[in-house]
């Protein structure tokens, strides 16, 4: 089968210099230039560490990306996933021509436009209408194209009333809506989208996701999508590339890509481990066990939470509790175990406590745990782990189900509805 490759990345690498620009850079620049005019290779390309922000490197140069190779077919929606600092944004910057790669090349058969961060180039003193034209032109549209879509853009943004008011009087939400509306009506062959879902209110987010699905499914446009929102990636993308420390570690269909990403050792978000010196009682380890064994938990299934505690001395009246906190930081579940209920930590050593929540009925979304370990007799909190483990509740109900994000945290499942006509 012949594939229709629209975009091809060959050995893309990007090197960054760390630290400040000063006299040191001048000497490096001169050295590099001296090598260049003698026809020799750039001496600084040979050095450089892989990009790991947590470890202290030996060199001033790091490779933000190293030997990236991939191909994108026409009409494909490619998800680029990886944790913070894996090189996703650098890759997108290279693809959108904002910065050039250090080595390698990208070949494309279509116009590329990016929706990197919306609202670039808005001018506060100009009206919404003027800014639509300016922003559209910055994104590569011609005046004619914008004029033909102007009404649609204004309608999509929902800012009709303010369209002839200077943008500096807009609320931040309105600015974002207007900006997204302009970008949503771009028509390049390849569209790059980076984390735009995190803007606007619930209603607008739904509209934005819908528009994005239209773009990718309906029009058969090629889309490169970068997001930390695994649910969005899962629903939009057909294929995935997983980046880690600037290298492609996995490439494949979207489900296995997400699975690979979530199962990498570093990304085991469902496990918390402490490396404290055990001089006082502490929380050693917490693990959330979802019904799927991964990050995702199906609605209405049992959730297990394992808490491992360690005490270097005998406790009299210990207590352990945890909260499940919504992504907005609101605690929605609180569970507690006291010594007098089920005894623990009365002797030196480690204890593992397991709490099982039957048929967890939380609304779909991402949740985190807060764990507390204290002693009621000493009136002292030994240790806590805040926003420790995270998991996402998914809902796959049979009936046509309609929900809005942030509209509730708890979904009652055994409510009996009766309707009586009066």
């Amino acid at each position: 089968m012949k594939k229709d490759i629209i975009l091809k990345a060959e050995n893309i690498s990007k090197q960054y210099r760390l630290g400040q620009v000063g006299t040191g850079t001048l000497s490096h620049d001169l050295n590099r230039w001296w090598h260049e005019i003698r026809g020799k290779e750039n001496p600084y390309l040979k050095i450089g560490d892989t990009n790991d922000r947590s470890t202290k490197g030996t060199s001033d140069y790091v490779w933000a990306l190293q030997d990236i190779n991939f191909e994108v077919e026409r009409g494909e929606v490619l998800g680029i996933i990886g944790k913070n600092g894996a090189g996703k944004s650098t890759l997108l910057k290279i693809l959108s021509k904002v910065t050039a790669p250090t080595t390698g090349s990208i070949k494309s058969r279509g116009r590329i436009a990016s929706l990197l961060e919306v609202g670039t180039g808005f001018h506060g003193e100009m009206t919404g209408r003027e800014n639509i034209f300016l922003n559209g032109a910055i994104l590569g549209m011609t005046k004619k194209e914008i004029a033909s879509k102007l009404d649609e853009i204004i309608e999509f943004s929902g800012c009709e009333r303010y369209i002839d008011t200077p943008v500096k009087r807009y609320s931040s939400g309105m600015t974002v809506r207007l900006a997204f509306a302009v970008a949503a009506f771009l028509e390049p062959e390849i569209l790059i989208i980076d984390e735009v879902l995190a803007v606007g209110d619930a209603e607008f987010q739904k509209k934005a996701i819908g528009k994005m699905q239209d773009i990718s499914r309906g029009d058969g446009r090629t889309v490169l999508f970068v997001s930390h929102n695994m649910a969005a990636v899962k629903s939009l993308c057909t294929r995935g590339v997983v980046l880690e420390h600037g290298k492609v570690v996995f490439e494949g269909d979207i489900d296995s890509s997400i699975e690979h990403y979530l199962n990498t050792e570093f990304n085991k978000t469902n496990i918390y481990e402490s490396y404290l010196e055990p001089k006082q009682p502490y929380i050693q380890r917490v693990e959330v066990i979802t019904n799927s064994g991964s990050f995702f938990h199906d609605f209405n299934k049992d959730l297990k939470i394992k808490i491992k505690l360690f005490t270097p001395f005998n406790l009299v009246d210990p207590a352990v509790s945890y909260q499940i906190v919504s992504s907005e930081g609101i605690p929605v579940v609180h569970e507690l175990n006291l010594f007098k209920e089920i005894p623990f930590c009365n002797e030196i050593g480690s204890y593992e406590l397991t709490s099982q929540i039957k048929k967890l009925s939380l609304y779909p979304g991402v949740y985190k745990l807060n764990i507390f370990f204290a002693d009621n007799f000493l009136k002292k909190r030994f240790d806590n782990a805040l926003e420790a483990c995270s998991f996402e509740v998914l809902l796959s109900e049979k009936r046509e189900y309609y929900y809005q994000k942030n509209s509730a945290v708890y979904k009652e499942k055994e409510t009996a509805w009766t309707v009586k006509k009066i």
Partner: protein
Amino acid sequence: MNTSNNTNDWLFEITPKNKFFTLNLKEVWQYRDLLFLFVKRDVITVYKQTVLGPLWYLIQPLFTAITFTIIFNNVAGISTGPVPPFLFNMAGITVWNYFTSCLNGTSNTFASNAGIFGKVYFPRIITPLSVVISNLIKFGIQFLIFVAFYLYYNFQGADLGLNSWVLLFPLLIIMMGILGLGLGMLISSMVTKYRDFSYLVGFGVQLLMYLSAVMYPMELIKTKLPGYGWLVEYNPLAYIIESARYMLLNVGQISLLGLTYTLAVTITVFFVGLLVFNKTEKSFIDTV
């Protein structure tokens, strides 16, 4: 893997190195609407939320000309020949202002647009071009008051001879714009890495004014300071200003050799600026 029908039907390629002198006029033409909108933005937003608004365009050259007249002509006693000193200064200042506003506007292209350059791609040269064009509009407005004073002095009976060289005046202004653009592109590229240059421009432009025959005839420096006259003689800007005054006021002299020299410098500066600018635009976002 048999991927594509043939390997050279790519629309474009992104690579680390780029070719020499890629002005890429086709791309600039594609983005002409953006150029127009940038110019519009610059023009309409400069004096927003000011009481006097566009009048500021007029106040600045007017008061500079008055100051120069008092200091250089009344106090220092520089002779401007048959031309009223105020008009003499006004002509020099109007033309000089166009150069400095082009240079100042383009020389911080990268630094002041880092936010937008870091997010979307469009031909970067659009930004300095828009500065040169919007300043041309500003120059047009300032030139109009010069014309107004010119007519006023004419009615007063001053000996003002317009000569046929004035037909070349637009070319002179375009040359000045290109010189400012070239120099600005050069400096803006260097500022991305070494901020020292932005300080250099700040006072350098002021010093340059004294070497550019703005408030005195070129002839004067040669006779009064023969040892340092070459400083002015090798300055292409001095020829532009001296020629502009000759065209508009029929004062001073026009030197074909000097103008050819100026044109050569302008073309060289422009292409060197373009080369450096193109080299910088590819990765400046990493260093800015």
